[in-house]
């Protein structure tokens, strides 16, 4: 049997089939969690954001325009929810806490883990706008056009923001001494 498309599942949800929404959750929770995690760094926060993303999506399903991809719409909610959560966090408690580095502390502290921590630290040093384009482009694999849809910005703006974000990130990583992938694969 062929897998149902997101759009089919959305149609069924709108007709009252809650189980179809469960399938959408199943299908997209991992990617939304990872997007939130890279934006927030903290896995508890990322889980909270993921939950509110799907709740918002469900509550606003009638507003979803089928001419867009469902995942773009979901990504947009996820980016907005992450930004809201970051704003709240900054306002109420600062950005300290149970972050990705602490979450992975029990993992084998090998080079890969250390490097990923440095990358995440570097991401957190970018502005949220820059972080969003880097995450969407490189960690979620979206095209310029898809990022433009998610962030509701012209493609031209996305390109210039991405290029300057990469430049800044490159400088940050250089300062933090992150080994680049060419060296890692060689070792």
């Amino acid at each position, binding site marked *: 049997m062929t897998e149902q498309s997101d759009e089919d599942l959305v149609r069924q949800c709108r007709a009252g089939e*809650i189980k179809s*929404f*469960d399938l959408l*959750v*199943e299908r997209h*929770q*991992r*990617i939304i*969690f*990872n997007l939130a*995690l*890279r934006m927030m760094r903290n*896995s508890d926060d*990322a*889980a909270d954001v*993921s*939950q509110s993303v*799907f*709740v918002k999506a*469900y*509550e*606003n399903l*009638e*507003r*979803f*325009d089928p*001419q*867009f991809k469902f995942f773009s*719409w979901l990504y947009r909610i996820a980016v907005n929810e992450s930004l809201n959560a970051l704003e709240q966090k900054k306002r109420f408690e600062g950005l300290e806490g149970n972050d*990705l580095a602490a979450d992975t502390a029990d993992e084998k502290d090998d080079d*890969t883990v250390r*490097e*990923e921590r440095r*990358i995440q630290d570097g991401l957190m040093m970018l502005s949220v706008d820059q972080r969003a384009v*880097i995450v969407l*482009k*490189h*960690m979620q*694999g979206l095209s*310029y056009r898809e990022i433009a849809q998610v962030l*509701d910005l012209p493609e031209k703006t996305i*390109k210039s923001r*991405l*290029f300057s974000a*990469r430049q800044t*990130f*490159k400088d940050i*990583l250089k300062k933090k001494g*992150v080994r*680049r*992938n*060419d060296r*890692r694969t060689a070792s």
Partner: protein
Amino acid sequence: MTGEQLRELIHRDVDGDLSPSERRELAGALRRNASARKLHAEIKALGTTLSSVRQVEPPANLGNRIRAEVRSRISTPTPRRTWVESFRALLETPSVLRYGTVFTGGLVTGALLFMFVIHPQPSANLSGDVATGTLLTHSETFPVDVNGAKGTLTAIPTETGKELTFRLTCGTSTTTKITYDPSRVKLENVREVQSAGGPVVVNEGVVEMTGTGPQRCTLAFTAAYRDSRVTVQIASAEGGKFNKDIQVR
């Protein structure tokens, strides 16, 4: 080619966005320019590094958490009591509470009668949801004495990227102006500002109507959203008789 153009080509090449001719152009520039070659290598390596960051498994209970939360948001209808049961329940309540309930009910009924029968008013708000990328039109006809009436149009989009259309139609003996103040109305594109029976002037920040005698006006509000939310208010101002408050969320 300027340095900026070269940098853009390098970044776009890393993203696989170049046409064959642009690729050839970049290859030539890289052959001639050592620092461009270095930048190209660095950006390429950065892209590879970022893309190789592993996906993290979400907490095992996340899916269940989400499903439970979504289900909790679905309103479950509560069994409704019949009129007889409600009346019986009221009789069984203590007398102070009973008389209090009857008195409050009377007050509310009186207020509603005054508002809608004895003293009818045009409705104050017009609300609706607009789906992303769709078009929604609200319109409402209301009486207005246009003699010297003035109002302020205030549109408050909560996000950028909106397209809005305002249209005010009054009697033909009326001159209307619908205007908006760009310092408050942060709209990317107001597609149409139009009225019947008079000129329309944009950029003055007020709604003005001049004419003779009471007229019936129709204020049609059309909003085409590219984004999820916008609030638009058209409110009365300066003691004029124009008094319309429309909010579209």
